[in-house]
């Protein structure tokens, strides 16, 4: 991290977390203020922008037709994360590539959770045509806790996605897809219950939620939990899958 802190500042933050009072007065499990808006990018199927105090992320989603992967009968979701070069001095040139790759990998692991996300709903014609969703994220300002902000913004953008209605016309072995021309005739994406990521950062012997960028410099390790809400016969169950990272 280019944002270096002096040993005294780190000591102050460490001691504060042990006493459950952080630099801005929050307790260990308080989030900062969140602001969200959807529908910000007109040339996408769905978009959102989320501000978590200083952190600013922008998500754009494009939905296209394509072939499913051989042997699989489900749609695809492809993630890409980009760090804007003005987000932080360390993102100049290729500096942001490491963080981008790390975040993209985290998001790809997230959709491996079959119980929460139902990719079979993206199939139009089995083994021939499916929806491919491209989720592109851009980090505009890095103010700490980017992964949580990205997961919240992606969930908001997916709920904003509008895909046109498609009807399949069978003609023997040939299929024809008719896409409705009416801009009002569209449906929202139904993927099951999209999860949200919560990152817990370890400072000293305690864990905190929503670390600011100074607190991230003092973290020893991080645990990211994927939390989703699954409804099964009117019962709500929380599924949590942890993934650990040692910094």
């Amino acid at each position, binding site marked *: 991290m280019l944002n270096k802190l002096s040993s005294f500042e780190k000591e102050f933050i460490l001691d*504060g977390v042990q006493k459950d009072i952080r630099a801005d007065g929050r307790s260990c*499990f308080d989030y900062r203020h969140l602001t969200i808006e959807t529908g910000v990018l007109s040339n996408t199927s769905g978009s959102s922008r989320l501000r978590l105090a200083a952190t600013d992320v922008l998500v754009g989603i494009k939905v296209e037709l394509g072939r499913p992967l051989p042997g699989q009968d489900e749609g695809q979701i492809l993630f890409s994360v980009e760090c804007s070069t003005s987000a932080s001095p360390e993102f100049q040139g290729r500096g942001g590539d490491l963080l981008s790759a790390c975040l993209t990998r985290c998001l790809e692991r997230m959709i491996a959770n079959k119980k929460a996300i139902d990719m079979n709903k993206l199939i139009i014609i089995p083994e021939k045509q499916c929806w491919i969703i491209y989720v592109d994220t851009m980090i505009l300002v890095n103010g700490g806790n980017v992964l949580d902000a990205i997961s919240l913004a992606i969930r908001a953008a997916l709920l904003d996605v509008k895909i046109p209605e498609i009807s399949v016309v069978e003609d023997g072995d040939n299929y024809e897809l008719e896409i409705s021309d009416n801009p009002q005739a569209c449906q929202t994406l139904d993927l099951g219950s999209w999860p949200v990521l919560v990152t817990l950062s370890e400072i000293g012997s305690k864990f905190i939620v929503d670390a600011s960028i100074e607190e991230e410099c003092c973290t020893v390790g991080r645990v990211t939990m994927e939390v989703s809400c699954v409804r099964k016969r009117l019962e709500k169950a929380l599924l949590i899958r942890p993934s650990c990272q040692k910094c």
Partner: protein
Amino acid sequence: MPQKIHIRLAAHRVNASVAVNRRVPKIFTPGQVITEQNEFMRGHGTYEEEGFLKSSVAGVKEQVNNLISIRPLKSRYNGEVGDVVVGRITEVQQKRWKVDTNSRLDSVLLLSSVNLPGGELRRRSAEDEHMMRQYLQEGDLISAEVQSVFSDGSLSLHTRSLKYGKLSQGVLIKVFPSLIKRSKTHFHNLYVGASIILGNNGFIWIYPTVTNSEDGVGGFVQNLEEVVSRPERETIARLRNCILALTQSKMMLFDTSILYAFEESQKYSVPELLVPEAMVDVAILTQDRLSMAENS
């Protein structure tokens, strides 16, 4: 233990501008026409196009007789001799340190401009050069004064006084340099139980008040073991949130405005001050008290 998480739509965000004497200060944006007359002289931040005088930066208008200039809201710090700055060491070079002070170029702190243990007039030997990293490392925070300005605009700092030197435990806040009011002293020991250094470069340092002062050492040897108690931490956190509230409403920062904001913020708990409504409320109340103090 359910925690409250504040989420809101961007469309419902709070307007942070605070009225001064019932007038909201007008902010000019780049390209905006200031005036149409030709008898005004162009100052900094303006340019002329098609007979109109237009602004080239985002800021407030300053007019002295017939000279119009625009003072930018957010800019890099332009140093002047005698300013007190708070900076972070970025490099240790042969006989000097490079300090980041939020200006266009890193400032320079020469080895000959610091107080070394052993007295004022000690000659700097070759050993001192090797021991430089033991005095100040990369990442350390210092308070210093601007000694001179080089021709390329970078600053030369010095810490030749006992009140300057390495900073120990505390919290650093970065604000726009234009919001710091110039005053006689930038070191304040507030009665509320914390001390504050208002650097002209926009870096503000809040730290617990030190009761005992070690003399002769020049501020370079500090105790990493000192513990900051919980009430002191709450005071420091409250001061930090008050300063951020004043910054969001673009109000000038000086010891009186910060103290008024601190007093007006007592009705909120410290984490509640991070909510935008509370920040605007504190800023408006502070502005009211400042106007009352001015008028009386």
